[in-house]
């Protein structure tokens, strides 16, 4: 384990000062504890943030479980929270304004029952947007988060056509007041990042899920699908969760209950 930690540090900028923050130290200590209890056997994975200098790994696969039974038809707290978190300022043009998460109300015409659900990037294991991207700008991170690398995106919008969930937006005009953790600019495609800046920080939650919980609905549950002891995995094991357009075999990271 010490050797592993040494490697992790080596990956970091070597001249960077050692972080003596107490919280970070305790997190590190927790990770060591988890492993030394049973050497060779992964007893549990800590939810602690990875060290900043360590690359993300496929030990995690981040996902979301959405319970449409408790999602309220007239509530858009998740959308508002997302816009506020990422600085998706309203330009007053609803047809072209960026939309990383949106609310859908779906009516079953045979029963008249209306199901309300948030729709966003489903963070597929086999994302069609990545398949079609001509420059490799659309990519899937090791931990399953599907992102657009705006440095290589040429704005062709092929990914927007390929996405079965209509999850992506194109930026049509020059922007200003972008936030430091969510750079955005004209001529690039963008979509839900699963709050990647929060994930890397170790928040272990997304802005939309936090807002939903704050409003007392708790329809959104974020977590690690590869950890059998995470709340999301337990919920999925107990109650199940379906993929939208499961027929496409994309193995989405976002699952729904009550559909």
């Amino acid at each position, binding site marked *: 384990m010490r050797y592993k930690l040494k490697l992790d540090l080596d990956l970091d900028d070597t001249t960077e000062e050692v972080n003596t923050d107490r919280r970070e130290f305790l997190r590190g200590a927790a990770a060591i504890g988890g492993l030394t209890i049973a050497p060779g056997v992964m007893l549990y994975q800590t939810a602690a943030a990875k060290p900043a200098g360590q690359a*993300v790994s496929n030990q995690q696969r981040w996902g979301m479980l959405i319970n449409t039974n408790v999602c309220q038809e007239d509530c858009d707290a998740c959308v508002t929270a997302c816009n506020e978190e990422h600085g998706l300022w309203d330009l007053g043009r609803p047809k072209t304004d960026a939309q990383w998460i949106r609310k859908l109300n779906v009516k079953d015409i045979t029963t008249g029952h209306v199901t309300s659900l948030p729709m966003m990037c489903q963070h597929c294991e086999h994302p069609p947007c990545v398949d079609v991207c001509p420059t490799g700008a659309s990519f899937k991170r090791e931990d399953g988060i599907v992102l657009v690398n705006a*440095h290589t995106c040429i704005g062709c919008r092929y990914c927007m056509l390929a996405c079965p969930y209509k999850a992506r937006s194109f930026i049509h005009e020059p922007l200003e007041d972008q936030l430091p953790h969510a750079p955005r600019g004209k001529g690039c495609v963008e979509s839900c990042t699963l709050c990647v800046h929060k994930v890397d920080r170790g928040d272990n939650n997304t802005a939309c899920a936090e807002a939903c919980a704050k409003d007392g609905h708790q329809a959104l549950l974020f977590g690690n699908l590869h950890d059998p002891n995470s709340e999301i995995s337990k919920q999925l094991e107990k109650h199940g969760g379906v993929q939208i357009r499961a027929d496409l075999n994309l193995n989405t990271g976002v699952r729904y209950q009550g559909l």
Partner: protein
Amino acid sequence: MKGLLEKYHKLLSLLLALSCTAALAASAGSPEVDIPPPKQNYSEETLCVEPVEIMRKQHFEFVLSHRDKTVIEGIRTKKHSLNECIDCHITANAQGEYSRYSDDTHFCASCHQFVAVNIDCFQCHADRPEEAIRKAKNSNKTVDHSEQTLKDYLELSNIDSH
């Protein structure tokens, strides 16, 4: 060619003398704007994350290699992060106002203007710390951003709007 050189010898030497004077004047001065100082020194030994002379010449190489590590691999070390540059270097002036990249008092812009460099970074990336942006968003709710942004963009990209 030789004849041509002799013919214009006087003119050439005059030009050379003039350009030397200009170069001297330029090297003697630095951007004459009042830039708010950075938040803090990086450490007791160095002002910035690398020695200042290296930063002046190579800062873009550091952020360029760091950006791919961050975007693709999720490496979030602070040392060569653009956000950290902005956070430390862009501070409020005496009036509590933060410079924008379009201002000549912006730390990055002051030098880029001086050496005639055009960059695209701030078309997407924040040119001020987050608190400054949040503050501006809350106080400017009535501003029509569409026209303002277009104007800024044209200015930043040096596009003639006519």
